[in-house]
């Protein structure tokens, strides 16, 4: 998609024109994103060829967690897994005010999707999502996780 940007100091109200051939989900998501001013996270379905699949804008609210495996970043949502062409730290920076917190070197989780937090018999603490998946909270990230929860509680 071609993007034209125009700087005009004289206009009193900023506006955005979108020219499209048909109202595809991507256009709809783009409109929603602009309206709600949410950070934009986009990715391609992980099971498709990266060059063929259309990039889809992901709603952060729909993402359960991000997983960094073999230098590739994946976002897990209810509808599927998406490959992102960015880094975990940049996503973390973008979404830190939207309920996303690091729980290990390779996982960034959405706290609004967590169903339960429970220690195992081997003393590892696992968090489970409402889709049934489980992720371990690394001991090194325990303190920052608690601090983040405290911060979000104050913000809420």
């Amino acid at each position, binding site marked *: 998609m071609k993007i034209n940007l125009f700087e005009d100091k004289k206009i009193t109200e900023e506006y955005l024109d979108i020219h499209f051939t048909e109202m595809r989900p991507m256009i709809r998501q783009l409109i929603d994103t602009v309206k709600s001013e949410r950070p934009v996270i986009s990715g391609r379905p992980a099971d498709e060829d990266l060059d063929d699949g259309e990039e889809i804008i992901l709603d952060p609210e729909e993402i359960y967690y991000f997983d960094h495996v073999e230098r590739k970043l994946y976002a897990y949502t209810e509808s599927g897994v998406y490959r992102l062409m960015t880094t975990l730290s940049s996503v973390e920076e973008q979404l830190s005010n939207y309920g996303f917190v690091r729980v290990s070197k390779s996982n960034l989780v959405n706290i609004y999707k967590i169903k339960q*937090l429970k*220690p195992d018999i081997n*003393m590892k*603490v696992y968090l489970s999502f409402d889709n049934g998946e489980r992720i371990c909270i690394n001991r090194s990230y325990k303190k920052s996780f608690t601090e983040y929860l405290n911060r979000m*509680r104050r913000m809420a």
Partner: protein
Amino acid sequence: MKEFIKTYLIELCCSYTVISVVGAITNVIYGSETNNANVILMFIFCNIGVFVLSIHKLFDKLSPLAMIVIQYVVAFGLCLLVVFISSLIDEVSPRGWFEFIRSFTIVYVIAAGFYYYRLFRDAKDQQEMLKEIQDKAARNKFI
């Protein structure tokens, strides 16, 4: 490294002070006395304990339970070695070995139990905080 040494020395000072004071109080209560060799051994044991506990980051990929067991075995082995070396210089009483194993293990089990309790309590607190955040977010959505 500088930070590690700083933390190490602080923890060593604190633990040695606590052990010395508890030892002195116990001596006063039971009317017993300690000697210079015991004081030096106490200091060496404190060093071993603080060092073994401070390398916990090396076991980050293991479960806490495995980490506790490994740290126990390493610390126990090092302390046993120190007692063995000291036995070459000064005689260890027949019950000395048993007393050493017992006093070392009891303290370690209590500390591990406390860690286990803290883990469950922290998880419970985090769960409550999470619920509060989620409830507030759900309420705000409907406003």
